[in-house]
Each structure stands twice: as structure tokens, then as C-alpha cells.
């Protein structure tokens, strides 16, 4: 079993880092904007489908990934418009877009169940070619881990900078206290549009990298995405705590995603049926979410304040 776990490690780390991009997107909406956005369940697949279709059509994979990011951002904007302009509740707005994306993703794939690209056309294949490595086995995971580390470092640096600017600060205020934000002249509709675009762009980016790693993409690759994202965010929060600097908390999200994959790999190794994994995911989230409440109840005399304690 132990050997099995070691063998599963490179693949698990690759998965953890690729899904960490999504988790950072979920962090933006769930923790910073305080908006439970289910769009990611569709936009991650949109990113995957767009990237793989373009790659298969011999478009440069970097360009394909960039286009995928904007496709996801567009999906986020649609959810934001449903919520802010048409006043549809946040959760329902996300569900509507997510559901619509399922059809759109099929159209992107040209009605095929899935689309594959020749490995040499993908970013992994091109990197393998560049460094004289193989695009399969351990090499494939090493390349993916390297690519993801660079991407994640860039994303964390960007988020750290962006949420320190006047714009970013307005978005944080909108998530923390919308009445206050409006009273301070912040256009909260616009704040939500920007945050949701960013979050779903990241989800699509994550999907694009996953499809490059798999050399294929399909409409079902994103099912359960929101649960994975949330699990990473809450586990990360448990690991690094709430008080750390903003970038520490972002790194915590990445660690959360890795730990989640580790728990997952362990569950498979001890012989749990893969069909039960979603049940396990939900249980992990429930446990992670209720630990602070239990701590509060049994280990401290502090009363929980009336205010939301996000971000």
C-alpha cells in the first residue's frame, strides 16, 4: 500500500497543483467576494474544451490557454450580470450559467463526447521536446509540476498585487460589507463582475492545463469542481490560519489543494471505491468547515460575532 502511495505521488502532486489554480479562483469568489459561485462547475470544462479544441487544431498551446482563460472570464461575467442586473440570487445565477455551459461545451467540442490532441501538440509535449524529455510517465508529471509552479507563482503574485490596489480594495470592501461599499461610492455591481470574471478565468485556466496534461477534454471533466475548490480553500485555511498575510493565505490554498489530493490518493489506496469519492469530498469539507465552530464552542469563551468573518 505504501509503495502504491509513493507511485501515486507524482500524479497526485500534478493534479493538486493543476486544481490549485481553480482553488485560487474559488478563493476569490468564496472568501473575498463572499459569493458562492457555482459557475466554476461549467467554466472549468469550458476552459478545458476550448484549450484542447484549439490545440488539436494546431493553435499554439499557450495561445489556446489564454483564449480558454477569457472564455471562462466571459462565463463569470454572465453569472455576475444575471445576479447584479437581473437580481437573480447568487447561487441560482451560478447554476443557470453552469447548466447552460454544459450545452455550450458540447458545441465547442463539435458534438463529440470528447476531443483529444496529439501529445506533441500540447504544452506538455512542446516542453518535453524543448528539454529533451518524454511526454509520458514521470517526465510528464515533472513537466506539469514545473509548469504549474510557475503559473501559480505568477497568479499568487498577481492576486497579491491586485487586491492591494484601489480596485482590489473596493472588491474586498464589497465582499465584506456591501452597504459600506456603496456608501463609499463603490460600484458594487462592477466589483462583482470583475471578481467573477477573474475567478472563472482561473477556473478555465485550470481546466485548460488539465486538458493539456490529459491530452484530451470532455464536458464532464468539471463535474464536482466547486466541491474540490471549496475543499482546497477550507483545508488551506485550516493549515495556515486566518491571520497570516494575504500571500500566505493564497499559498495555503495551494497547500489545501495538494493535501486534498493526498487524502484522495490515500482513500483510493486503502481500497475505497472511486464512486464514493464525491461522498468523501463532501465529508472532508464538512469536517474542515465545522472545525472552527467546534473549536469556538469547546475551547474558547469568545462569542461568535454578528459579522461575517471572511477573507
Amino acid at each position, binding site marked *: 500500500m505504501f509503495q502504491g502511495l509513493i507511485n501515486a505521488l507524482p500524479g497526485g502532486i500534478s493534479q493538486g497543483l493543476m486544481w490549485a489554480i481553480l482553488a485560487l479562483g474559488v478563493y476569490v469568489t468564496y472568501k473575498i467576494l463572499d459569493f458562492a459561485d457555482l459557475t466554476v462547475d461549467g467554466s472549468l470544462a469550458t476552459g478545458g474544451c476550448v484549450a484542447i479544441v484549439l490545440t488539436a487544431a494546431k493553435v499554439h498551446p499557450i495561445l489556446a490557454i489564454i483564449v480558454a482563460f477569457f472564455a471562462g472570464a466571459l462565463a463569470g461575467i454572465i453569472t455576475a450580470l444575471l445576479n447584479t442586473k437581473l437580481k437573480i440570487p447568487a447561487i441560482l445565477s451560478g447554476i443557470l450559467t453552469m447548466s447552460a455551459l454544459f450545452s455550450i461545451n458540447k458545441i465547442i467540442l463539435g458534438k463529440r463526447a470528447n476531443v483529444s490532441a496529439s501529445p506533441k501538440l500540447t504544452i506538455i509535449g512542446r516542453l518535453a521536446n524543448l528539454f529533451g524529455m518524454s511526454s509520458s510517465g514521470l517526465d510528464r508529471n515533472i513537466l506539469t509540476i514545473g509548469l504549474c509552479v510557475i503559473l501559480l507563482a505568477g497568479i499568487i503574485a498577481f492576486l497579491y498585487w*491586485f487586491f*492591494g*490596489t*484601489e*480596485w*482590489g*480594495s*473596493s472588491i*474586498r*470592501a464589497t465582499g*465584506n*460589507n456591501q*452597504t*459600506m*461599499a*456603496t*456608501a*463609499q*461610492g*463603490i*460600484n*458594487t455591481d462592477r466589483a462583482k463582475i470583475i471578481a467573477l470574471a477573474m475567478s472563472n478565468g482561473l477556473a478555465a485556466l485550470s481546466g485548460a492545463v488539465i486538458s493539456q496534461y490529459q491530452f484530451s477534454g470532455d464536458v464532464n471533466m468539471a463535474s464536482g469542481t466547486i466541491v474540490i475548490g471549496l475543499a482546497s480553500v477550507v483545508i488551506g485555511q485550516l493549515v495556515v490560519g486566518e491571520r497570516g498575510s494575504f500571500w500566505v493565505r493564497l499559498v495555503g490554498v495551494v497547500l489545501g489543494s495538494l493535501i486534498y489530493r493526498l487524502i484522495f490518493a490515500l482513500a483510493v489506496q486503502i481500497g475505497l471505491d472511486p464512486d464514493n469519492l464525491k461522498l468523501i469530498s463532501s465529508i472532508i469539507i464538512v469536517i474542515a468547515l465545522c472545525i472552527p465552530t467546534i473549536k469556538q464552542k469547546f475551547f474558547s469563551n469568545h462569542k461568535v*460575532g*454578528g*459579522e*461575517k*468573518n*471572511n*477573507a
Partner: protein
Amino acid sequence: MLEISNLHVIFNKGTVNEKHALKGVDLKLEEGDFVTVIGGNGAGKSTLLNSIAGTFPVESGSIVLDGVELTKMPDYKRAKYVSRVFQDPLIGTAGNMSIEENLALAARRGKRRTLRWYTNNEERAKFKELLAEFDLGLEDRMMQKVGTLSGGQRQAITLLMASLASPKLLLLDEHTAALDPKTAKKVLALTEKIAKDNNLTVLMITHNMSDAIKYGNKLIMMNEGKIAFSCEGEEKVDLTIPFLMEKFEKTVGEALGGDKLLLG
């Protein structure tokens, strides 16, 4: 400078819960006026302030501030001209953000927000100076989250925020009602100082009659969505609590009871 004419507000129009909250309010304020607003529950005091701030659309009438037509302007745009302090100290500030971040957000009210860093050293020094004047020891805790402060401290910060970015009108909706009497007194003194220093025009709702008499140069009493009584100048200076109570009983048609108006 503020000109409200024939303002009507109807909530839940066309339903069984329809409420005609403002029934033709006319109000004219001069620059630097400090107006206290009193009235029973449901008289329309908060509705009046909220319609000036743009929280909800009005049925008819107009609100013009310094020649700027506010009637149909969205609330976040009105914030450039109108700043506010709420009754609940938690509402005026972002609890998860630091004192400095809250002040920096307020300093950019009505200005174009950019991708520059949320504040700068020059501004930090100015905030420190302003906070020091409050004498609450907050100037050395600029990076502390506002959520860790007391209600009075949060209200003081909200007040300071409301005075930044030179608004024309300051709306105070019972902003001391949730504070203990000692803190309330301190916050009211700060309010007067800030209004004076910045030459702000102020509309202040209060449940405390003696405060309504003590502060400001004008007083209006509201009842059933209308201004029932108003006075200013000498007349305002000579106001007494018994006189106001009698006036109130006459207009409302019932004796003052319960917590409708505190005598302070």
C-alpha cells in the same frame, strides 16, 4: 443648497403591504445648516434620509443638491456628494479591513479608482493626524482590523470617513443610538467638530429630544410621512423639551410613550 420638493415614497406599491412612507416632503437647507430630525417610529425620518442617499427609488418629487439633480442618480454615484453614518456601528465600516484601508476607501469616495496601491505614505500621515485629533489612541493602530474595535470607536471612524473627500451633505441616522451614554456624548461632540471644521451641511435623526434641541441650527419634526413642525434660528435656541413634547402630542394626537422619544 439642498432642495427637496414634493417628495413621495411608496413601498410595495400595488400590494396589500403598500405603505405611503413620504407624502410630499418639502425641505430647503442652506450651506452649513445642521438640522436635527425628530419624530415617532414610522414617521418617515429614515425614509427621508435613505431617499436622499438613493437607497431606493422615489415615487415622485425631486432632490437637488447644489444644483446637481440627485433624484434618479444611483446610490454609489450620490456618495460623491452625500456621506452617511448609520445607527449600527457595524454597517459603516468594513470589519475585516484595517483602519487604514477603511479610511483610504473613504478618501476615494466619488473619485475614479485606479490600479494604484490603495494608499500612500502622504495619505497615511494625514490619516494619523486626523485620528490623533480624536484622542482615542487609534492613530497607532492603523493596521488593526476595524472589526476588533468597540462600537464607539467604529462609529468615530465612520464619522471621520464620512468627512473625507469633501462631501456636501452628511446624513446621520441615529448614529449614537447604539452607544452607551458616555460614548454617545463623545461621538456627538466629534460630530459637531467635524461638521464645523469641514463646513458640512448635516441632517441628523435623533431619538433624544435634548440632543435635538442642543445641536444644530434647525429642527424638523416628522409625522406620517410629512414635516409636521420645523423651526430655526432664535426660535430653535429657545426650544424646550416640554414645548416640543406638547407640539408632538398635538401633531401625533397621542401622548409620548414608551421608547418613541427619549428625553435624555
